[in-house]
């Protein structure tokens, strides 16, 4: 283990970086090595297994105080909640069917205002079985109350995980952050990643930054174990629920300024004034970059919008961009087109939004598919 000193977040983020040719899973290890994480709990599922295995190696080296394998994903996510309630910085990761198996825990995390950081390495869910990438689970996660960031590359993954802790732990935010990335296309892909020196780490989590009292049997307003609101059907319990749920949503809204501060805008654009806009998130953006380069070389006026934050959603930014464009194409690695739905929900004129192209069940999306859509809509 390398002797580490805790530095201000900005110092770590802006430190002189070294480029390494590593996988997405290894990028997660390097982020966690520098994240001053106290506890990590794992349960294997492809394509995530390797990342938490590598985090286990960090525990063996002495970078993490406690690490164990849970009984299953539900147990892991519940144990992680316990750790966060007890006031430690905690990390875990899962993906696909693992996400679904643990599902009840995610709104619970948000409701309890726990600043947990979890990496989700998306994969198809079992109908029928695939271990390959598919972002369908993100559709299910949209209304759990957690902040959702979508990494396009291993570099994004490294950057976003480190920053996620700082965003999650702000007193006025203090809700979980999920850093999503496409399984295999990022986790198992080797790419150049710029990494800060290993002798630096984030400052420790201050549990007194929590906006709610420590959750135990004695403290109001929670007292969830004894006399929970849910047991009473009266005005007080309804009012408590309504205000609390709105407060969790408001916390996500307040996260915007911290996302902007640490990750930059919620979106990134190239040629935002173009007639045809490709709007995507995750590796759909990578394929779109390739398609845009071909299309522009053929004379098409094409631009690109990468959405980095799915929750909170960059509603205002997208509304303005869609207003200016003639056609909006939304390529996605899932069957349902959840990102297109999100975009439609904020756009004034939804008729110019092309829902697709889609691939799912683990298929690769050749840039040619997006190019075909560009050609078709240009006629």
């Amino acid at each position, binding site marked *: 283990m390398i002797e580490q000193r805790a530095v201000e977040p900005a110092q770590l983020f802006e430190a002189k970086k070294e480029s390494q040719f590593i996988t997405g899973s290894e990028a997660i*290890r390097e982020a966690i090595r520098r994240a001053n994480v106290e506890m990590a709990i794992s349960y294997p599922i492809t394509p995530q297994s390797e990342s938490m*295995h590598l985090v286990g190696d960090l525990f063996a080296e002495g970078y993490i105080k406690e690490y164990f394998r849970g009984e299953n994903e539900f147990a892991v996510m519940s144990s992680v909640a316990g750790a966060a309630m007890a006031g430690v910085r905690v990390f875990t990761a899962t993906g696909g069917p693992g996400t679904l198996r643990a599902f009840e825990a995610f709104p619970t995390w948000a409701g309890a205002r726990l600043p947990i950081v979890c990496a989700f390495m998306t994969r198809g869910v079992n109908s029928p079985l695939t271990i390959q990438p598919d972002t369908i689970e993100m559709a299910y996660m949209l209304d759990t109350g957690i902040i959702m960031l979508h990494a396009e590359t291993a570099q994004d993954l490294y950057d976003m995980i480190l920053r996620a802790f700082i965003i999650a732990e702000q007193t006025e935010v203090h809700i979980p952050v999920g850093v999503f990335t496409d399984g295999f296309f990022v986790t198992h*892909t080797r790419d150049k990643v710029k990494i800060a020196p290993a002798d630096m780490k984030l400052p420790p989590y201050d549990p007194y930054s929590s906006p709610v009292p420590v959750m135990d049997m004695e403290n109001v307003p929670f007292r969830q174990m004894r006399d929970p609101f849910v047991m009473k059907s009266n005005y007080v319990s309804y009012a408590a629920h309504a205000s609390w749920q709105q407060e969790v949503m408001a916390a996500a809204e307040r996260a915007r300024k911290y996302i902007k501060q640490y990750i930059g805008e919620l979106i990134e654009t190239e040629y935002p004034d173009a007639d045809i806009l490709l709007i995507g998130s995750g590796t759909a953006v990578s394929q779109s*970059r390739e398609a845009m380069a071909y299309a522009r070389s053929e004379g098409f006026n094409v631009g690109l919008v990468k959405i980095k934050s799915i929750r909170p959603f960059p509603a205002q930014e997208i509304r303005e961009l869609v207003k200016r464009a003639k056609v909006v194409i939304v390529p996605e690695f899932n069957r349902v087109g959840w990102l297109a739905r999100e975009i439609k929900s904020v756009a004034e004129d939804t008729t110019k939004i092309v829902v697709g192209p889609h691939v799912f069940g683990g298929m690769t999306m050749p840039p040619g598919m997006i190019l075909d859509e560009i050609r078709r809509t240009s006629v």
Partner: protein
Amino acid sequence: MNKKISIRMSGLGGQGVVTAAHILGSAATKEGKDSTVNPFFGAEKRLAPAESYVRISDETIHERGEILYPDIIMIFHPHVITLGKCYTMPFFDGLQKEGIIIINSDEPLTLQKDDLAKLAGLNARLFYIPATQLAIDIGGTDLSTNVSMLGGLLGVTNIVSLESLKESLAERFGGGQFVASGTTAALDDALKGKYTKVAQLIEKNMEVAAQSRKFVTEYKL
């Protein structure tokens, strides 16, 4: 973008298809090129189909995932073709014009006539290399089949230099920096056991790569 070279490696689990891709991609980055490498497999078990993809370019590479339109296809085991142990059917699907195919086989396989005609139509070049035999004869173990295939690739193209490949090999097997998945780690240990010393392992593998360059033979289509 035309400068980008896309390589698809198809083989069987345990043959080092993923490792070969890593070594090649890493060698390319050592030469200042951009490269991305990713695998594709189902269950991590021996003899199951496994594929890996390497993209190498002078410019930034954005595209991800499976390579559907390869410039070079490397077949690590005849069963990929004869038993269809492959995610891509036929094995040369998507091959670009003037593409290259390198097959690990002691002798030319009996390919279907229409397949051969399609390859001829693409102006493809087909090569055979007895990679497993070379690995056993020179390296003393069939576990070096993947390095022999990389040697074969250098016999046909100048995609990376032998020196960069050597540097990349040394990095892959030389230190404790790299962490493979559980099953790959077990294979690594087996390999290191075979060669007692890491230095010897690298040296032997380099010999496999260097010699293999000379044993690729073109099959006229």
